[in-house]
């Protein structure tokens, strides 16, 4: 009786009735109430708009878990079938139209939907070019200094961090690893400057795993503090090549578009010597996507003019910028050029800073 009167998702209801014959009486009460609701809904729909979508009660109202699961699977299958049918129809239409078919729609991604950022650097902008040309890295970019990097850790580092530092030192030419010995960074910095170092990298460790990095450009340059995650050491990498050689690698900086991104990009670029040795065929990549900077180190070989083979060597890690401070490391009294404020900046999923 109930089945025939209500012209709604007969399949589901039919199946339900089949399975639950003994329970029909208890469900009848529910069915009636639902039917009334459905009638009301149908009436309203007819008043307001065209033939409404047949209102089906949601699968979550079935109390029995097995049956609920079964109904849900069926629902999913139905949906998938309908989707496939729609796709086939569209494809047929597209083929039928041939050349006149409308162009394929581009799917929306978060990178596509990125909020317009007014700080994106215009290559022809004189003021920004002047600003960059005379900032703290100008000595490096004008060829006056060669990078010399000091890598150290927080106090009493554990095995993984030590190995990470050693591998970083092989990747960055002219890098030296020193044991921290509990020294204060503010005392270390003048000594580094006296010995002509241009960079100080401090890897911070937490629970035997590196999790932070402070990158300080030495004469009086900016200090960047990053969060480090996903560190993979050399032996954990699959299909890796032999150890990197002493040649200076090429550097690739991807997707650093805003003004802040430019500053960070220059910070990374100044770590490596200006003239890469192409003989070594090694390349270090800093790829920025959604404010995360991915570091990879590869060796490439050109098989012919169009095909390249790459082998990943070296450690791989991900960085996220937490703060950029003007001046050398001084977390208490320094002036910050940019600070990550999570509640304000991470609120919008489509807005990125780098």
């Amino acid at each position, binding site marked *: 009786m109930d089945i025939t009167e209500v012209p709604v998702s007969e399949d589901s209801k039919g199946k339900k009735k089949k399975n639950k014959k003994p329970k029909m009486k208890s469900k009848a009460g529910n069915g009636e109430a639902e039917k009334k609701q459905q009638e009301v809904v149908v009436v309203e729909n007819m008043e307001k708009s065209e033939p409404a979508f047949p209102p089906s009660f949601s699968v979550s109202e079935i109390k029995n878990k097995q049956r609920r699961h079964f109904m849900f699977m069926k629902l999913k299958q139905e949906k998938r079938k309908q989707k496939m049918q729609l796709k086939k129809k569209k494809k047929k239409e597209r083929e039928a139209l041939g050349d006149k078919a409308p162009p394929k729609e581009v799917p929306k991604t978060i990178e596509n939907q990125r909020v317009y950022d007014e700080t994106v650097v215009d290559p022809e902008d004189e003021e920004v070019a002047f*600003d960059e040309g005379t900032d703290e890295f100008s000595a490096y970019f004008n060829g006056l200094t060669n990078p010399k990097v000091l890598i150290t850790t927080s106090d009493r580092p554990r095995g993984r961090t030590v190995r990470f530092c050693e591998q970083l030192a092989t990747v960055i030419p002219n890098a030296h690893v020193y044991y921290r010995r509990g020294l204060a960074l503010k005392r270390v910095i003048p000594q580094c400057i006296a010995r002509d170092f241009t960079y100080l990298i401090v890897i911070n460790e937490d629970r035997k795993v590196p999790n932070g990095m402070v990158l300080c450009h030495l004469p009086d340059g900016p200090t960047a503090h990053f969060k480090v995650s996903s560190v993979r050491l050399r032996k954990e990498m699959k299909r890796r090549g032999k150890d990197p050689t002493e040649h200076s690698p090429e550097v690739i900086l991807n997707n650093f578009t805003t003004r802040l991104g430019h500053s960070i990009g220059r910070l990374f670029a100044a770590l490596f010597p200006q003239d890469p040795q192409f003989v070594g065929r090694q390349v270090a990549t800093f790829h920025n996507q959604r404010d995360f900077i991915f570091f990879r180190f590869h060796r490439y070989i050109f098989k012919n003019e169009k095909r390249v083979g790459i082998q990943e060597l070296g450690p791989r890690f991900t960085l996220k910028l937490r703060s950029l401070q*003007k001046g050398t490391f001084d977390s208490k009294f320094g*002036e910050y050029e940019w600070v990550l404020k999570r509640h304000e900046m991470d609120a919008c999923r489509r807005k990125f800073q780098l």
Partner: protein
Amino acid sequence: MMADSSRLCSVWLGSETGILKGVSLGRKQAFNFCNTRQLSRDQEVRALCWADPAQSELLLGSVDGTVRTFSTEKGAFTEARRCGEPAEGCFTGLAALSGSATVTCVECGTLRVWREDSSEPATQLHAGQNVCRMRQSPVHRHKVATGGKDNPLKIWDLQRPESPAFTAKNLRDDWLDLRRPHWVRDMAFIPDSDKVVTCTGYHQVHVFDPASPQRRPVLEVEYGEYPLTALSLPPGGQSVVVGNTHGQIAVLDLRKGAVRGCLKGLAGGVRALQCHSSQPVVASCGLDRFLRVHSLEDRKLLHKVYLKSRLNCVLLASREEAGQTAGEAGSQEVKEEEEDEVWDAMERVEEAPKRKTTTEEEEEEEQEEEEVKKKSKKKKKKKKEAFED
């Protein structure tokens, strides 16, 4: 052309690249004014102030020791003057005295008064080492205050340059009997009284009263964990706006010593803050290369302008704002008149008594409210009419 754009600007900023930027908030445009063809870091603007109360000329102090004058009427730099050596440090304060004299203060502590004609300072005094800021009292033009790192607040009377009129005493030793460190970053004179507010590099805000016998601060307020770099007083006189190196700007209440609220949005250290003299608006600029204008009543961001270099100082023009608002009010009145005509042209719908009162009320409200709301109510009325039809 430059003169036109300079007359429109209501906010003036000095940047690290040496460019003077003028921003017109009503039109949302920014203009660059530059002296030389080539930019250079030596011209970095460190101090900015109005040369006269009529606000027609600006004084800029640069790193290389020159003080330049910029005329807002003409839109060009009119004068440049050598007022000190770059070896002495950057300008920490610039002020204009009546009679076309300028007061300059540099980081090493030398405060000089320059007359228009001579190239030698008329008066010179030493305000200690490491002066961070010098400010002039808006009421008594010959009084200036200086303060710096380990250099307590000193109020000088320029007519008696031998010794300061008031020297603040350091805070009491702390509970371990150690001397408290002292670092005055910025100060301001509270109008209608003799009091001076200072903010320190140890995240404290102090109020000093030279009239009272105690030389220690009358009120002490702490905010945040980072050095406070800039300070400004809104027209009320009961509160103060401070900014720190992390980009946090807060409005503190001076009567109780509590934080009233924070202004959000800045991502870099605050270099300069300025409250408007009549409107409850505060402009902030800093190392993140943005100019932000917040409203003090609801602490919301009103304007945000990207200016491509790091900004060092900001100045608000009071008369330009008035000009703009008068213009806007005029245009609004014109639009309101047009709206009234439209309403009169429309036929009155005869409805039930209940409805009539509401329509009357709506009309009265509309005459008072702005366009946007009028438009939405128009739509509602039209919809109502359509529905009844």
